[in-house]
Structure formats: C-alpha cells, structure tokens
C-alpha cells in the first residue's frame, strides 16, 4: 500500500475542454397530465439514465405486477409510487449536445403548490404540460400565472397524450388557442406549443410520423433553444452583503465583505455605496481563494471585497456603485404576493421579511386586491389572505430596507415572508410608497393620547428626586466593557443619593423578553427596551442601559419610544450611527473612574443632575 499523498495546493488551471453552460428547467402543469412521464422519456431516449436505475425500477414493477411506466423512474419514493402522483420537486440530471441540464419535476397537485413553487423558483425556463384529452385545467392556468411572478420568462407548452385523441390536429389547435389567450392576460408569450405523446416518444427528441401536420421543433430542440439571461451582467451593479469576515484568530487581517453579485460588475478602485446606511468607500481588492488575483468580478460570482477605508457595514446591506442608479430605500412598499402558509396572512401580525440579504420585521398594512390565479378574477375588501391566494398588498417594515422594483432587477426586487419559522409566502415589489411618518412615530402618538396619567406631574417628580429623568444609553462595539461601566456609574450615582437604575441586557432578556429569540429579533428587543425606558423616565428615574452597535434607525427608535423622556447617548469607540452626535464620545474606556467623572460632568452640564458639584 502506498501512503496517502497530499498534493500541494496550486492555483487552479482553466482546463482544456470546451466550456459548457448549465440550465435549470422546471416541468409544471396540472396533476396527471404526464409531467413525470415527459421527464422519464427524455432521460431514457437521450441515454441519460444510469443503467442500474432503469433495471431497478423495471424489476420493482415486475415484483409488484404493475406495467412499467417512465414516470416511475422519477417517482422513486415509496409514498409517490403508492399514490401515483409527484409530491415534491425532484431533480434529474441530463446532458444534451450543447449544455448540462437539471430538470426539476414539479408536482401538479394543488396540495403541493409550495413544492411546485420551490422547484420553479430554481429554474430559468419551464416546460408546461397539458393533457390533450383533459385540456386546460385549473393548475395549468395557476402554474402559468405563477411563472411570471417567479421571474421565469421562457416557457414552452407541451400538449401531451396526443395518442389518446388520435393525434388530432384540431384538439391541439383548440388547446393552443385557449391557453394562448390565458397567457396573454398574464403578459407571458410562450416560445412554442409542441404536440407530443411522452409515453410513445412522439416529438420528444425526434419529430413523429404520427403527426405529419406538425413541423415545429421537438421538446429536446426547444430546450436547447432556451437562452441564458446574459443581460444580468449589463445591468447596474448590485451585491447584497451576505456577511463580513475577519479571521483575525487565524492570522488573517483582511476585513472581507462577502456576497454574490446579483447584477452588473465591479472593479478594483471603483467607489461603492451601501444601502440603506448610505456609507461609501472604494474597492481595494477582490478576494477569492485558490484563483489568480482578479481586478473585476461580474454577476453570478460569489466573491469578497476589501475596502480602502474601514467603514461599518453590516450583513443585509445592499452594495451598489456610485455613479449608477442606486436602489430605493424605505419602509413601505407595494407587492404582488402568493401565500403558502398554513395560517392566513393577517394585518397587525408581525412577520419576518427576507429580502436579498436583509431580514426585517414587517407588517401587512393593507390588502388592495386578491386574485384567483386560475380564473384571474379579483376581489377587494378582503381582511386576510388565504393559502394559495395571490394578492396585491402594501407592507411596512420596522426599519428601512434597500430594494429595487422587480421589473427592473428581479433579484433584489423580491422577498419571502416568514410565519412561525416557515417561509409562508413570496412577493415581488411593484412600487415604493413614500411616507412621512413611521410605525413607531404613530405608535408613540397613540400611546401618548391614551396614556393613563397619575396626579403626580413630571416637575413634581423632578423636584422630589432633585434630578431630571433621562435614559443614559451607553453604546459602542460589543466587548468594550459597557456593562461594567454602566454598573459602576449606577453605584456612583446611587452613593450620591440619585434615583437611578441600571437595566442590564441579560436581565431584560431573562425577564420581559424571555419569549423572544434574541439572536434573530434584535429589533424587537430594542423596541421593548425603548418601552421599558419610557416607564422609568416617566417615573422620574435616571435609567442607565447599554446596547451594542446601534445604527441610526435603532437609536432613533429608542429615543422616540422613550419620549417624552430624554435620551442621553454615550458612545465608546467607533460608531455606526451618523444622524446625531453622541452627547459624550469616549474613544477608549481606559480608566473607568475618569469616564464616570466625564459622564457626570456632561449630565450636570445638561441639567439632568443640577446640584452636582465637582
């Protein structure tokens, strides 16, 4: 036996073989119209099946005394063979002379619409199958409509089982007519209508003698005729920030902003802008592992970049190029959505929106119309959206998000909604809605109107405690000793007979916030912190609390929720927020005693602690 030899890592070579591209195709249509048979036949006739598989399925059919069908090749799961329908989207691999395909066989039963959508959303083009004998059915239409929403622009329609209608051209022509009219209403123009019998292989990979009247292209030829969307590279540059890495512990000092370029291209030296924060810098380098150094990168590549200046960028921001049209930013948007959730989509319920790299709390603000995607009839005055419905709605996010309109850039113009841990719906953005007020501002106004006030006024409390109430908010990078500072400050003020309270992050998480997952729900945590601060300042107390890495929006939200109480900001080290100056900037904690003296001086100057003497 030879020992295991490890080869040295070398920069990968480009390889000598001709480059081939790859395309994902989805097969859709109504249940039992023969989608799986189309795929099975395509694989068998092009010699793409593993030998073992055909023999195995044939042997199983023999054992169970069932006639062999091509669909069984795909419906390899026990569940599906028993029911004879496809439950979930299955991938099949297949090569033609010109490219590599992944064929996604999507289920046609309405119960499994979420699986059809999962399959179709991965595809670049679609084959829609209609049974010649049954004709255009509910899901032939629903699936056709959803293709447009899912961003699939290339579709060919296979009219299947022509053998069952005697290869009659009249039947085919009638279906072409009916379905073309339907698709026209959705704005979709199919590349081709192909009459086939998948079971007998008619017009699959060669033109059939049974249909001399058809002189179009075969199914295989149609697939090869689909084109890759090359224009992505020509659009304006967009790269959602997926993560920011610094592997300092591994001896790597690069601060790498990682993500996939969705559209456009970017080069070293170009100025980039991050949305919604609006921060900008220049590209210092393009980073990849085990490849020669590159000066530029383009749509489709998952890359990393380093910047010339150290700016604070967080995952979820959208990187664009200065000098090109930027994305929109805001809290309200109009969208066309499809709902797949087990529970209906409701107003006044908090959902999570995932849009490119961003994840934000979102509320359904209004339902404009609800559409039956099969009949294309609309309804207004609806209070909720039921499973499998399509609707035009307005959503409001808790904090601003960056996005494009879907017709301009699909990749950054669509989102999914999470309900109770599950992806429950998807939407494409059609409009931005300009708004002057925010959800938080509206809430604070309403809270103030409805607040039950006691007989004790704020000046009475100030006089009793000899201080003006405020939230002293200590912020800055995580791990800078903010909590110890806050506690020491409380001890010091308490010793000076102040009415003061330190609210620790963990206390809050263990107490009123124990029901929320604090990793994913930072905004909700901060919202609750703001509400708690409001109670303390209303009670006349100086509240000391800490929060790491606050951005502009978060700071504004906390201050607004604390109103009419005052908010005093002490920042340690670098900061993410730009819209206001901190009341006190500390570059390095150094001596805690000195910092406490500075904070007390500032509170004294600003008349929160008026009698304080140095």
């Amino acid at each position, binding site marked *: 036996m030879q020992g295991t030899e490890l080869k040295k*890592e070398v920069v*990968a070579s480009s390889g000598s073989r001709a480059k081939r*591209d*790859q395309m994902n195709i989805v097969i859709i249509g109504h249940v039992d119209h023969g989608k799986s048979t189309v795929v099975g036949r395509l694989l068998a006739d092009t010699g793409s099946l593993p*030998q073992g598989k055909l023999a195995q399925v044939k042997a199983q059919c023999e054992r169970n005394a069932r006639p062999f069908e091509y669909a069984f090749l795909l419906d*390899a799961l026990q*569940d599906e063979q028993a029911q004879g329908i496809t439950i979930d989207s299955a*991938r099949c691999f297949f090569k033609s002379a010109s490219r590599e395909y992944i064929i996604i066989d999507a289920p046609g039963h309405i119960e499994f619409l979420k699986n059809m959508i999962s399959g179709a*959303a991965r595809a670049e083009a679609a084959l829609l199958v209609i049974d010649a004998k049954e004709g255009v059915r509910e899901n032939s239409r629903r699936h056709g409509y959803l293709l447009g929403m899912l961003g699939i622009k290339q579709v060919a329609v296979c009219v299947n089982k022509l053998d069952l209608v005697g290869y009659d051209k009249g039947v085919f022509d009638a279906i072409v007519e009916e379905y073309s009219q339907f698709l026209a209403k959705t704005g979709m123009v199919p590349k081709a209508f192909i009459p086939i019998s998948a079971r007998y292989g008619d017009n699959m990979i060669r033109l059939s003698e049974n249909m001399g009247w058809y002189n179009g292209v075969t199914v295989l030829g149609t697939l090869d005729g689909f084109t890759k969307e090359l224009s992505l590279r020509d659009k304006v540059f967009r790269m959602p920030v*997926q993560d920011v890495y610094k592997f300092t512990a591994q001896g790597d000092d690069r601060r790498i902003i990682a993500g996939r370029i969705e559209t456009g291209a970017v080069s070293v030296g170009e100025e980039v802008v991050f949305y919604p924060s609006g921060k900008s810098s220049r590209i210092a380098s393009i980073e990849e592992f085990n490849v020669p150094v590159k000066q530029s990168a383009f749509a489709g590549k998952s890359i990393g970049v380093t910047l010339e200046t150290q700016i604070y960028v967080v995952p979820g921001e959208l990187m664009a190029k200065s000098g090109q049209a930027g994305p929109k930013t805001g809290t309200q948007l109009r969208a066309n959505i499809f709902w797949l959730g087990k529970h209906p989509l409701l107003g006044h319920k908090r959902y999570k929106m995932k849009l490119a790299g961003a994840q934000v709390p979102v509320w359904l603000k209004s339902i404009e119309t609800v559409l039956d995607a099969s009949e294309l009839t609309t309804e207004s005055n609806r209070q909720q959206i039921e499973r499998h419905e399509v609707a035009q709605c307005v959503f409001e996010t808790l904090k601003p998000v960056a996005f494009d309109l879907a017709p301009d850039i699909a990749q950054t113009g669509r989102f999914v909604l999470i309900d109770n841990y599950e992806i429950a719906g998807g939407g494409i953005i059609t409009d931005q809605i300009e708004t002057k007020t925010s959800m938080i501002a509206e809430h604070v106004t309403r809270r103030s109107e409805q607040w039950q006030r006691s007989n004790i006024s704020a000046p009475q409390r100030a006089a009793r405690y000899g201080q003006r109430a405020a939230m002293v908010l200590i912020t800055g990078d995580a791990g800078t000793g903010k909590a110890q500072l806050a506690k020491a400050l409380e001890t010091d003020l308490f010793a000076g007979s102040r009415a003061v309270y330190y609210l620790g992050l963990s206390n809050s998480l263990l107490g009123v916030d124990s029901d929320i997952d604090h990793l994913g729900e930072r905004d909700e945590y901060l919202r609750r912190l703001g509400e708690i601060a409001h109670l303390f300042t209303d009670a006349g107390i100086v509240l000391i609390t800490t929060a790491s890495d606050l951005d502009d929006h978060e700071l504004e939200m906390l201050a607004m929720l604390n109103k009419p109480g005052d908010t005093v900001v002490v920042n340690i080290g670098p900061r993410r927020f730009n819209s206001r100056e901190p009341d006190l900037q500390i570059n390095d904690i150094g001596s805690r005693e000195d910092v406490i003296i500075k904070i007390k001086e500032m509170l004294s100057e600003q008349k929160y602690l008026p009698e304080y003497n140095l």
Partner: protein
Amino acid sequence: MDHLETLESQSVFILREAYRQFKQLVMLWSIGKDSTVLLWLARKAFFGHAPIPLMHIDTCFKVPEMITYRDELARQWKLNMIVGKNTAALESKQTFPDGNSTRLECCASLKSEALKKTLSGEWPRWILDHTTGEYVRRVGGEAFTGVIVGARADEEGSRSKERYFSARDKQSDWDVGDQPPELWNQFKTDFAPGTHVRIHPLLDWTELNIWEYIERENIPVTDLYFDRGQGIRYRSLGCWPCTKPVESTARNVQEIIEELRSGKFANIAERSGREQDKEDGNGLETLRRRGYM
C-alpha cells in the same frame, strides 16, 4: 460562467448563508470525495479558512487509509475535527462484520445512531488537539442546530427531492411529503427549539461534476479511488465489509473523468457497490427517514 463556476458559486452562497444563520453549525466529513469537495468549497467560501467544525462518524470499519488521510488533511488545513462513534455497539460486537446484525441494522447503529447522539451532545466527542496531534475525549458538548452534509441529488430518488436547507424534527425524522418552500435563494434558517436543519450545498452536483472540480482545483483525494495496479478501485468509500471496489484501471483523476464521461461507468449508478442498498427495495430511503446522511 461555465457549469463548474455556476455550481461553485451556488455552493459557496449556501455555505455562507449557513455560517451566517446558525450559531451551532457543523459539517459532516465522511472522508469521501463529495464531502472533501464540500470542505474545499468551505475554504473557498471563507477565503482559505475552515471556520466550521468538521465531524466524522467513525464506524471503526473504515478502510485504514481513510483515517490516515483524514488526520493529515486535518493537521495541514488546521481543521477543527470532531469524531463520534457508537462505542457501546462496538464493544458488545453488535455489528454486521461481527455477525450479530444485518447490514441495515449495522448502518443504523454505527452511523445513524452515533451521528444523532454525537450531534446532540448526548454522547462523547473526540476532538483533535492540534498541539499534540491526539484526539481528546470530551463530554457535555452543545447540540448542533445546523448540519452541513455532502448529499447529491443524483445519488438516488430520495436525495433528488431534498431542499438545500432541510428541516429535521427532534427524532431526526424527515417529513418528505411536507417540506417547507424554498425559493429565490431564501432558505429555511428559522427553526423551532429542539429541531435542526440539514444543509445540502452539493445537491446540484453530479458524480462527474465532483471529479471535474477535483481536477480543476487540484483537490487532494485519497488514492483508494485510483487503480494501484490490481485493476480495481473504490468508486464510493464506506466501511470495508460493505463497500466493494469496482473493476477499473483508472489511475488518476483524468482517467476517472474519462471513465464517467464516456467509459464503462457512464451509465452505471455510483452506489452500485454498496451492499446495504440491496437489502430491501428502498434501502437508502429507509435509512434516510431515520436520519442517515
């Protein structure tokens, strides 16, 4: 972009998404070509680093060169290695090679059970200490909530239906009929307490793509995959009692690629050398529902 660039970009995207979303994340490394490509893709995703710990479930019936190869790469690439095993079954000899169980029972015990209990932290984990080069036994580890696996959709029917991010309940069960939707590269990254998510960055890769990528990137693989003069080689690696070498004279990566493209294996399924798949009609499907990778 050519097909390998497209596949690479998507896998890197998935790995980064997993790393961002899961705090308790681990990658399974079977030492085979697929999970070694996966490990390489992680180094691509994280710019030469391997920040995600690697877990190997050692049945103690692996071909010995696999373990040598594992530890060499672990040292060279500074991998955070975790090894798990079913010591009780091994000590009481409740295994197929000892003649005390069927192949499927043996797989369920030495692989699925060991994996489940090592992931949850109920059983000890053996951690590679890079200063001594030895594995150290640790108990009471935290449960992993994100598990990255090198499954490929072309391996067999049930794998072709997997999502990139696939939910598993407390019993590690997979509900094939009711999987959550997955669209526009938005994955299931929210999960209820007690459940975990399996992440499949290689779903879209075929066996041929794996070898083409190994060639392009010059990824080191164990030479068990090559004919070393006896006219046989392993096409798929597993435990020696249940994995048969295939007859082949492919001596290097290029020759394997030719064999898969147009040679004798162009139309023969990869797992045809795995004996446990033949015990019942749906061997792998049965195992997968019970938590097999």
